[in-house]
């Protein structure tokens, strides 16, 4: 079943076309990697899907219904959870409180439920929060401030917050950026585990080894256009890809 369907998505910033007529599908249960050189439009594509940026053209369907034009929070509530390339945690809140926001947003805990101390909603939020914290092994530090966390752990905190949303699609924007080799290795295993547990994952990553090792399908963007879409081995051998991306990467 197709979970996410992007059709002819286009995004212009003034004269610049950051995403140019990109179409791609993600089936439920799939794990798809999006790669491409700096400025290829990967983050912009993710912003279009999660509603951070409006489309200039094309359409996006999620779970059978159009989501382009919807507000960001409404798209999130439909089941799109994401992390950010430039880590966006809530620094002056505890880890528990950070992660709880994912569950609160999804369950829409309003002022009246907290005035009445609605046990049902609160228990659900707490359970989701603890489960997500345990999933990333941060439960023991639940009550420390996020600002006091190491960089590597912040990455997991952000993922846990998205997991507390219980999303249908998890979008990760460069989760391994800034991690060393062994940390990247652990992260790869973690993402593979998530996927094995049934999560649909869309992943942007510069680390080719990581993408190739955990994704069954890879989409390649260059200058806003999709230039390849297929199994890692096929993509790796694609001359267009070699020229526009892998070549650049080797030079760097």
């Amino acid at each position, binding site marked *: 079943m197709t979970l996410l369907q992007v059709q002819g998505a286009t995004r212009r910033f003034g004269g610049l076309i950051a995403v140019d007529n990109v179409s791609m599908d993600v089936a439920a249960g799939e794990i798809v990697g999006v790669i491409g050189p700096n400025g290829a439009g990967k983050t912009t594509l993710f912003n279009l899907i999660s509603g951070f940026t409006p489309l200039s053209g094309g359409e996006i369907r999620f779970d059978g219904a159009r989501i382009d034009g919807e507000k960001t*929070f409404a798209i999130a509530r439909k089941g799109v959870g994401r992390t950010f390339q430039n880590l966006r945690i809530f620094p002056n809140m505890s880890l528990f409180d950070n992660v709880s926001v994912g569950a609160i947003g999804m369950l829409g805990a*309003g002022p009246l439920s907290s005035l009445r101390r609605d046990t049902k909603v*609160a228990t659900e939020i707490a359970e989701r929060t603890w489960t997500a914290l345990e999933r990333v092994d941060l439960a023991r530090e639940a009550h420390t401030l996020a600002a006091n966390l190491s960089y590597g752990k912040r990455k997991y905190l952000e993922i846990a917050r998205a997991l507390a949303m219980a999303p249908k699609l998890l979008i990760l924007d460069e989760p391994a950026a800034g991690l060393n080799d062994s940390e990247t290795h652990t992260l790869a295993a973690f993402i593979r585990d998530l996927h094995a547990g049934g999560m649909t994952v869309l992943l942007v990553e510069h680390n080719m080894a990581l993408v190739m090792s955990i994704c069954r399908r890879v989409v390649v963007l260059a200058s806003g256009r999709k230039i390849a879409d297929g199994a890692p081995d096929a993509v790796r051998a694609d001359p267009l890809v070699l020229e526009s991306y892998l070549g650049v990467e080797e030079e760097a």
Partner: protein
Amino acid sequence: MSDRFRARLIAIGFLALVFVAAPAALTAFGKSYYWQVADLALIFALLAGSMHLVTGVAGLLQLGHAAFYGVGAYAAALLATKAGLSLAFTLPLAGLSAATIAVLVALPTMRLVSIYFAVATLAIGQMLYLIMLNWVEVTKGPNGIMLFSGMKFAGLDLSRPLPTYLVVAATVCVSLFVLHRLSHSYYGNALRALREDDQCADAMGVDTVRLKIEAFGVSGFFAGVAGALWAHTAGFISPPDFSFQTSILILAMVVVGGLGSLPGAVLGAFILILLPEALRPFGDFRNIAVGVVLFASILFVPKGLIGEVSALDFARRQLAGAWRRDGAGAEIGWR
């Protein structure tokens, strides 16, 4: 368990101070002026508590809070003098009037960010102040409004100092309790997420615009209630009570106590109302002393006298007994 016991003790101690010790001491001194100061300290505790929700928790710098205080005061004064309503009706109606205006004002300004939002609230505060000053037919302008027999309810005369004080104390404590429930629950977490990174909260499914408007409305409501209390207890209101200076005073209370901390806001209000009174014997020097205290507290305890972290810890773990533990001893969270 002993932690919890200690916290309960603090909560009970606070209530005992407000409802037993303070009235007993005031009765012993017998000066009606002291009673007025006590009423004022409580009213400002509520003003600071209501600003805490919007500025400390939701992170929206509000520079016009006193205007909503004024809207409540004028609503109560007009309802009492023109319609002859008693304070059982004027209190909630004053709150609703202020909340309505707060929400109307919030609708167009919520998309503004940080400093622009602050300037917008400043402008709104000024506008409302000028309306109070210049709409003479209704507000009597600079002459203000007198409320005769403002403290009567169901045939009871509450105008003696002790009953007046008890009405104020009860209203303020109930209001602070509601603010406590809102700011220390999961709802408070959603508000805090707005302060930290509202775009990011949006991506988590939090309806940020709606939440900001709610926080603004609730904060306006309690500012309005505080205004009604002031109108009824002082018996006379005029525009200078609700000027920009008052807004800044409330902001100072919230910051000195600790941004994001409800007990801090209450403590800040008590200090900034009671300290100048305590220093009255020193004449004009007292204003300088208050300034020095403000300056020193920002310099040495920038997170406030009761910082947000300790306030949250206190309120959640103990005050409300709200963090349940499961069989394995892990906390399940706020009920």
